[in-house]
């Protein structure tokens, strides 16, 4: 009797959350998959099933290819900048944990991660501004010609990478600091007795032992890199909002197809591609972690 009562309580208590989850997560996810197989346009009445035709069209879509390429470059660019830098900065902050300024270091590195993106992007827009930005003025000191950072198709991708890395770094540093705190102190003392210098124990001890954390942070960074949207939207839309200069990224292309071209089914197939990328990355992470677990 009591047991039955407890079961009823558990089910009744979980029900509202489950219902919300079903409505705002599971249903739209399933709907994305369904729409991707349909010619589902807002304007037309008929929304026929067309199999994989949307995906076939994506393969030949110039704008989609550009978006996929840009997004991939941005995601890996952010990864390459963020991971090594975060590891070093975290090691240094961890080394100086007892310093009076440790809190200041941690806070300032982390602030870019929590501030609202749009105001932060405004700051960077000013820095990159071709006419009155300090970056060009600074480079001018070394005799480098001013660059149109936000208008050049290559440089604007670089700008997005810089902005995203600036934001991603704080999170990675924080996770690495937690990682450093969990490493066994005795190992470092033994290494020190054997005459290892600080950089040596960082290279031969910390990096290998932090591998699972590196893997985790890398996947998180890549996944959020593939979902980049706001950064590209704000940074690369110039003051006049001129179209065509924007750094085309996957989410932007998807929203444009859905809300400007009214091709919802087509946009959904792009979402499915994005999902596939994220799933592959997650799978890679789990496989590598499991292999590690099996070996040790």
């Amino acid at each position, binding site marked *: 009797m009591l047991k039955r009562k407890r079961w009823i309580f558990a089910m009744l208590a979980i029900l509202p959350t489950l219902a919300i989850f079903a409505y705002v997560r599971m249903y739209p996810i399933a709907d994305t998959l369904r729409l991707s197989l349909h010619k589902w346009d807002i304007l037309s009445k008929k929304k026929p099933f067309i199999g994989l035709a949307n995906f076939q069209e994506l393969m030949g879509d110039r704008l989609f290819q550009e978006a996929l390429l840009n997004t991939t470059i941005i995601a890996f660019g952010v990864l390459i900048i963020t991971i090594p830098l975060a590891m070093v900065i975290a090691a240094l902050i961890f080394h100086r944990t007892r310093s009076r300024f440790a809190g200041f270091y941690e806070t300032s590195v*982390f602030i870019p991660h929590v501030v609202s993106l749009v105001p932060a992007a405004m700051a960077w827009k000013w820095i990159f501004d071709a006419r009155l930005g300090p970056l060009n003025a600074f480079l001018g000191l070394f005799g480098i010609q001013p660059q149109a950072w936000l208008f050049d198709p290559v440089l604007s991708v670089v700008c997005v990478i810089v902005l995203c890395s600036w934001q991603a770094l704080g999170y990675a540093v*924080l*996770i690495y600091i937690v990682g450093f705190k969990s490493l066994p102190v005795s190992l470092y003392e033994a290494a020190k007795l054997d005459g290892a210098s600080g950089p040596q124990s960082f290279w031969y001890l910390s990096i290998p032992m932090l591998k699972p954390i590196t893997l985790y942070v890398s996947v998180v960074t890549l996944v959020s890199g593939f979902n980049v949207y706001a950064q590209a939207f704000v940074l690369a839309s110039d003051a006049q909002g001129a179209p065509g200069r924007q750094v085309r990224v996957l989410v932007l292309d998807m929203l444009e197809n859905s*809300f400007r071209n009214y091709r919802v089914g087509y946009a*959904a197939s792009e979402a499915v591609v994005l999902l596939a990328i994220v799933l592959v990355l997650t799978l890679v992470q789990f496989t590598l972690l499991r292999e590690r677990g099996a070996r040790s």
Partner: protein
Amino acid sequence: MSEAVSDIAVEQAEGARLRFKKRAVDRLIDVVLFLFSILMILPLIFLVSNAFKTPQEMLAWPPTVIPANPTLDNFAAVLGQTPLLQWIANSLMFAGLSTVAILATSAIAGYILGKFQYKTLTVIFALFLATAIVPFEVYMIPLYFQAQSLGILNSTWGLLLGYLVMSFGIFLIRQNVIHSIPDELLEAARIDGAGELWIFWRIVLPLLRGALGALGVLAFFQAWTAFAWPMIVTTTRESYTIEVGLALFQTGFTVDLGRLSAASAAVLVPSVTLFILLRRNFVQGIASTGLKE
């Protein structure tokens, strides 16, 4: 005899030299970290300072950190041109309600999934886990049409629809329940005749205060900084969140950087202050992501 003494002297000198070297290295690291920290927040410092500058001073090289003739013109212009306060109010409302919803659903679901062992619950937990992998951007378009059919576009409720639950919140609370609430405590209460609801309300919730605090801060900042979802759900100027409002304001024809900086600073300063005050909560929440398998 004298040889031994000199040995000790040498050793002492060597020790002192090493200590000195270590201290010098530490100082050097401090300098590096200090410069790097400043570099990280420099864009934000300039943003705030630009907000108070005249158009002429904006062009000055090297850029000044403290404006020579501080002016409030930029702020006045922004408040005259945009419903900035309305946008901030919208964001506050949205982020506040989202926090409440996420705390409520995470606390209940986390507790049930952490302390009750039934097959059905295992399945439900697996479902939550599976949806957690899918990025929001993947399914936001169908969700938009759901909001449309409910007739809640351009409203706080429409914004809220995307931010009612947080998979990570449920995992966080579940972990906490498993690690910090002993079964014996709950059993003892049951033997004393306490009802399940009473146990949750009077025993479990108070013990979860720390974890819920951390989650609350995360949830608030998540909604406060949301961009893609508010961008598609709100299309009228009055319903924008501050992020959307600013992003679209900056694409306008007549906008200069001074006014943009003023609007941005008005948003940034309160949220950074709030973050510094709640730093401990925040770090605790973030640090527990993914690391506890």
